[in-house]
């Protein structure tokens, strides 16, 4: 057996499988089934961490997920993880574990000097100082505080592991696999319900894992557990999950579980997720979360070697570890007596049991006494001695009047404490369940909830094993709608502990310098809590925030009730009046990566590729993200930068022809007898007179009157419109259309279908566009006379069905060839080949932007920012004056929407034709404008125009249309402002001759 404190023949570890790992560089031997804490304890080592504020040496106080002290960093490189509880980390060969928050070493930590300064570092000290001299806060004090704070170091490499998510549904979710949870799950499962049972531990059993005394149906606890688990496994309607914590109780019984799959394995399979989050929608939930033993608050209660009595019992029975040679037990509860008996039986000397109660009694107390163990009634622990390990406990009598007399020190290397048990209410509270203070038990228990949830067993204050099992069955049946459930007989059970203690233990003298910890990790003492109350923080939430008690990584599991009791004591109010702080999810910390789940890397968000994406990639395109789409931005040739490539692409379109993948434009087919009426109501434009085969530019406003989207609309038939939207606006426009149609105008016979991805759009633009296209279309006359600008024709191109739009966003003769997406690349290839002799070039979004800016066409989202009216952007002409109503009409009539000083879209030219303004530049009236100043407007689009051989820009300027020719200035971030002149925004071919060619 490795480890001087390992007890042969005990524990649930596998002594046939030794495991070696490193702790702070040193080899530690343990066994499969050990945790880091149990393996170190087996070597007699309690010191495992340092506290947050005072850097006090600390050992494990618990054996589970409530551990505040023994936090360690585990793993290396990308798999290093800080702040894990040594009490939960299962060891495996080669594991690397480091202690935290200490320098240079765990045994000698320079930060422990903070303990000496403790008198001037009470709760909230930082609110009262570090204010002088001003300026020192950022530069001196805060960096110091930050370096001292924090626990482990943050990871500095990307995590190579992957994580999973699973949505599950069940009739009954049972959270907690102790006796109550097992009973509930079996009762519900046998009643035929779909059941999920989860437990955060490695195996089911809960308190039965360490109860070697009680018998169920004549069987030892763990034998019974094995039998029940086997029965549950046989039920096809029951899902069992271990290493799986229910951590978040959301609205409508959506409970999230965190399942840990691979951390305990030395060499997990490559595809195994590290963790999986289960999002469980349960019709009913049974909470069987158990209860946690409370620590006692006394001077020096944080010394390594001082732990919860139940923890020592766990280390003994689950890991075969004696946590010391000679123990002193301090208790206010009967349960600790059973622990003392178990330890004594295993060879640990119990030096004394100090019981805070005046007259402890009952079978278990008598059993202890009959073993010759000294039981000291009405006795408190005045203080614990020792530094890196407890060396003794000073026990002192409590007089009838409550005063504490002189005590004596008993040498020991282990102090076990038990303040009684606190029901775990976290999930119930997260379910917005009320909490009720049970005066008899001295603890809060669950009240009503709006959710379909019930608690069972010790998490609702039921502690006797037979009652716990019955309670579990009742809860399971109620949740499942079953009528009869299993019945078991419990023998040899200990009576539930009476008594319990919360708050600071009675002591002799004021103890002004004594440090008695309420919250171990955050180093909050009883004095801190009292100070907070003295300073007027009377709400328990204020006390929590001012002292930080309950805000450590254990979220106050061990400290909240003691803090509450101290506050209640100082204020002279009942605990019910003081109340509890809100329980905030998660129950235990959950990995960020687990929340991210499958959404990672390229799969973080859908990447939508337009139909000609592969072709563009083969051309060496540079892409840009537009919403979820990846669009071709420009097609550089060897040696070209963006400016050169874009200039070449623009020249090609103006001089010959360009081809552009416009498929991402949103498209909606509006069909039905009332289609035109719907269009009239929805768009600011009028549609009734648009004849079949004609197109019109459409503008959408919200009812606020502000421009929302735009696009060309073609009329395919009397009852059928082909509507286009912007790329980014596609989903929004369709949703807004459905909203008005379904809720305002349900009488209209018109229906909407998204056809964005049905039709790929090949834009062919430029003076040679017709020459290229004409031979390709099947029997369709696209001559200027037969198919003028803003018309559409249905037909086919090389046998592929086609909706051909003669439209232009470039100012050139142009077509948008709509073909079914699957055949788009073939059509594109034909056009591309046909265009070669005409100098056809592909162009991207950047050239498209330049070309449209030369024409003064706006881009919604670039010229507009959600506060522009149609009139502001020069589209007042599109707004129908005669329609009785349309979306936005009422708001557009407001005086403010027609004020003369509104921002209006204008063109802007710099004095220096080579100077390209930066988009976003502000415009002011004077060359030298002292700040702060108000802007006259701002630049929305700015490019070098190859067609004009100079820079051009579009701006939104106050009253801009009446200021043509005026000079304004664009201040730069560095250097003098640039002088600009306001001009008409149509820079190129203002007559539109090229369009109508």
């Amino acid at each position, binding site marked *: 057996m490795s480890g001087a404190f390992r007890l042969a023949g005990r524990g649930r570890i596998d002594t046939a499988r030794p495991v070696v790992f490193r702790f702070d560089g040193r080899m530690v031997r343990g066994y499969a089934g050990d945790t880091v804490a149990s393996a170190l304890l087996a070597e007699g080592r309690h010191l495992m961490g340092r506290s947050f504020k005072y850097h006090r040496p600390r050992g494990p106080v618990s054996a589970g997920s409530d551990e505040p002290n023994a936090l360690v960093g585990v793993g290396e490189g990308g798999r290093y993880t800080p702040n894990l509880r040594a009490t939960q980390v299962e060891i495996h060969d080669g594991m690397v574990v480091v202690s935290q928050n200490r320098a240079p070493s765990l045994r000698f930590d320079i930060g422990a000097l903070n303990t000496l300064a403790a008198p*001037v570092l009470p709760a909230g000290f930082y609110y009262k100082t570090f204010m002088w001299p001003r300026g020192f806060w950022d530069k001196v004090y805060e960096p110091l505080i930050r370096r001292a*704070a924090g626990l482990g170091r943050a990871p500095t490499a990307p995590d190579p592991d992957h994580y999973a998510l699973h949505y599950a549904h069940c009739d009954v979710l049972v959270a907690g696999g102790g006796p109550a949870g097992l009973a509930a799950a079996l009762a519900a499962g046998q009643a035929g319900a779909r059941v999920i049972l989860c437990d955060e531990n490695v195996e089911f059993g809960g308190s039965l894992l360490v109860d070697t005394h009680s018998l169920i149906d004549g069987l030892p606890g763990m034998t019974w557990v094995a039998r029940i688990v086997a029965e549950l496994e046989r039920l096809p309607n029951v899902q069992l999950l271990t290493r799986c914590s229910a951590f978040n109780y959301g609205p409508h019984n959506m409970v999230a579980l965190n399942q840990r799959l691979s951390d305990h394995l030395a060499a997990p399979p490559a595809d195994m997720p590290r963790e999986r989050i289960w999002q469980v929608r349960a019709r009913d939930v049974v909470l069987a979360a158990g209860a946690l033993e409370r620590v006692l608050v006394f001077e020096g209660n944080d010394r390594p070697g001082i732990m919860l009595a139940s923890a020592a019992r766990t280390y003994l029975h689950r890991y075969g570890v004696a946590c010391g040679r000679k123990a002193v037990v301090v208790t206010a509860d009967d349960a600790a007596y059973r622990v003392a008996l178990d330890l004594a039986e295993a060879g640990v000397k119990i030096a004394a049991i100090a019981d805070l109660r005046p007259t402890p009694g009952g079978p278990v107390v008598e059993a202890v006494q009959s073993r010759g163990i000294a039981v000291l009634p009405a006795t408190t622990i005045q203080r614990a001695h020792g530094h890196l390990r407890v060396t003794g406990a000073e026990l002192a009598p409590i007089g009838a009047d409550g005063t504490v007399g002189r005590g004596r020190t008993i040498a020991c290397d282990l102090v076990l404490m038990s303040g009684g048990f606190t029901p775990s209410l976290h999930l119930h509270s997260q379910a917005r369940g009320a909490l009720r203070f049970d005066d008899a038990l001295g603890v809060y228990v669950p009240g009503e909830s709006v959710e379909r949830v019930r608690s069972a067993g010790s998490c609702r204050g039921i502690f006797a094993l037979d009652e716990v099992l019955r309670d579990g069955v009742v809860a399971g049946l109620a949740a499942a709608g079953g009528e009869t459930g299993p019945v078991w007989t419990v023998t040899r059970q200990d009576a539930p502990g009476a008594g319990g203690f919360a708050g600071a233990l009675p002591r002799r003298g004021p103890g002004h310098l004594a440090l008695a910890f309420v919250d171990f990790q955050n180093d909050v003492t009883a004095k801190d809590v009292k100070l907070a109350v003295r300073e007027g923080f009377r*709400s328990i939430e204020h006390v929590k925030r001012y002292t930080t008690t309950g805000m450590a990584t254990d979220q106050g599991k061990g400290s909240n009730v003691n803090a509450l009791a101290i506050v209640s004591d100082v204020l002279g109010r009942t605990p019910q009046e003081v109340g509890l702080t809100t329980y905030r999810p998660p129950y235990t910390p959950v990995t*960020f990566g687990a929340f*991210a789940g499958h959404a990672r*890397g390229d799969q973080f968000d859908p990447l939508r590729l337009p139909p000609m994406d592969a072709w563009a990639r083969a051309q060496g395109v540079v892409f840009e993200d537009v919403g979820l789409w990846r669009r071709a931005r420009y097609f550089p040739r060897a040696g070209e930068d963006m400016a050169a490539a874009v200039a070449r692409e623009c020249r090609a379109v103006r001089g010959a022809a360009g081809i552009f993948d416009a498929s991402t434009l949103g498209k909606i087919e509006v069909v039905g007898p009332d289609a035109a009426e719907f269009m009239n109501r929805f768009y600011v434009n009028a549609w009734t007179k648009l004849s079949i085969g004609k197109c019109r530019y459409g503008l959408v406003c919200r009812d606020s009157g502000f421009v929302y989207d735009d696009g060309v609309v073609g009329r395919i038939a009397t009852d059928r419109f082909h509507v286009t939207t912007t790329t980014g606006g596609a989903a929004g426009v369709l949703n807004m259309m459905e909203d008005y149609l379904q809720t305002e105008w349900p009488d209209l016979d018109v229906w909407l279908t998204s056809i964005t991805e049905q039709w790929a759009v090949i834009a062919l633009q430029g003076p040679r566009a017709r020459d290229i296209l004409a031979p390709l279309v099947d029997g369709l006359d696209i001559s200027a006379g037969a198919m003028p600008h803003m018309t559409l024709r249905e037909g086919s191109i090389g046998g592929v069905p086609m909706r051909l739009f003669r439209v232009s966003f470039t100012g050139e003769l142009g077509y948008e060839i709509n073909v079914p997406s699957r055949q788009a690349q073939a059509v594109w290839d034909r056009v591309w080949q046909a265009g070669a002799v005409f100098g056809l070039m592909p162009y991207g979004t950047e050239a498209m932007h330049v070309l449209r800016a030369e024409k003064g066409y706006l881009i919604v989202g670039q010229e507009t920012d959600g506060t522009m009216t149609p009139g502001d952007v020069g589209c007042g002409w599109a707004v129908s004056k005669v329609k009785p109503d349309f979306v936005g009409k009422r708001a557009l009539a407001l005086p403010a929407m027609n004020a003369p000083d509104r921002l209006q879209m204008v063109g802007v030219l710099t004095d220096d034709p080579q100077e390209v303004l930066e988009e976003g530049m502000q415009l002011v009236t004077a060359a030298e404008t002292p700040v702060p100043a108000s802007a006259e407007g701002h630049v929305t689009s700015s490019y070098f125009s190859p067609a004009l051989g100079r820079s051009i820009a579009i701006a939104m300027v106050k009253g801009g249309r009446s200021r043509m020719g005026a000079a304004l200035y664009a201040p730069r971030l560095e250097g003098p402002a640039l002088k600009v002149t306001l001009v008409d925004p149509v820079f190129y071919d203002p007559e539109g001759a090229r369009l109508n060619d």
Partner: protein
Amino acid sequence: MQKFSAFSLARQAMGRHLGWRPQWRSVVPKPSYDIIIVGGGGHGLGAAYYLAKQHGLCNIAVVERGWLAGGNTARNTTIIRSNYLFEQSSSYYEHALKLWEGLSEELNYNVMFSQRGCLMVAHTVHDVQVFKRHVYANRLNGIDNEWLTPEETKAFCPPLNISPNIRYPVLGAALQRRAGTARHDAVAWGFARAASDLGVDIIENCEVTGIDRDPSGKVTGVQTTRGPIRAGKIGVSAAGHSSVVLAMAGIRLPLQVNPLQALVSEPVKPAFPCVVMSNTIHAYISQSDKGEMVIGAGTDSYVSYTQRGGLHIPAHTLEAICELVPDFRRLRMLRSWGGITDNTPDRSPITAKTSVPGLYVNCGWGTGGFKATPGAANLFAWTIARDEPHPINAPFTIERFRDGTLIDEAAAAAVAH
């Protein structure tokens, strides 16, 4: 007021800290005050402080239905910045930022204002356009904001992933160096302590149940769970409960409340030097003095007063954090919570008179109220004291929704192409 300093701390230490007095007086409500502030969060307490300090109006009560600063003051991610796009907004937030810069000294309470800088990260060409417009607009308004290349962004915040091959590469960032974070509770407590010292009565556990008015319609006081209290003026600064309180005076507001969730990681040693915001992928992160990564999630879509929301909202945020800062993938969520944000249609606040004489409202701060705390408090106090708005908050009326003069910061950042 007991002076707070290193010296007083040391002196009290010798007296074993028994000499500290309550930071604010615990009082029984008087029958009448000149002014009642409804809502004991940072904004309300601050308004009371500035009314007393700057306008000499000390016969004031702040009534709070629960515990002081237990609402959104206690639930936000403490980001402070003033780099808003529109001049009206940036002036308002800059007014607040300037007050933040002297607040610890002003209140003799260390509010831990840490000017760590705030990066607004751009991931698309459109983001770049929008943020550059912010930079130019802010600079013209005398507010610091600068543009960083991806490499400069990485230098300012080394944990950021600026690889060009990720789903949303970092194309640059706008940096406001004067932006940062502060300790949220301290702001409220500091205002409470200073206001109390000037004679303001701070009344906790006192819920307003009605607003009394005379026949002319003017307010005369409030009904509360601790009895009626008379007052000549009432300033409502009730955040998520603004609609509920104003309804007592027959006023409907252009507000919708939504849950807003936030979370922190377990504390770690300093690893993240500034505030980073990404609007495109919805991630907001900074590291607190304690070492926790403080992360803001998005709002749940629906109206709710429950102070909780769906887990998918923070999960989505963490997806984004894990992409932006992949080293943090193994950090763990320690604590999450929800607040009730009061959102206006244009996502800008209201700090204004109401149509009821003597009744004033400061609301609609949505997800951005904390950063404005001293500024909103200061201007709300001005508005109440003078019965007219300060020029800075003059545009932030209720009437703007009637006349169409919206200040739409949210729409300004919207994506379309």
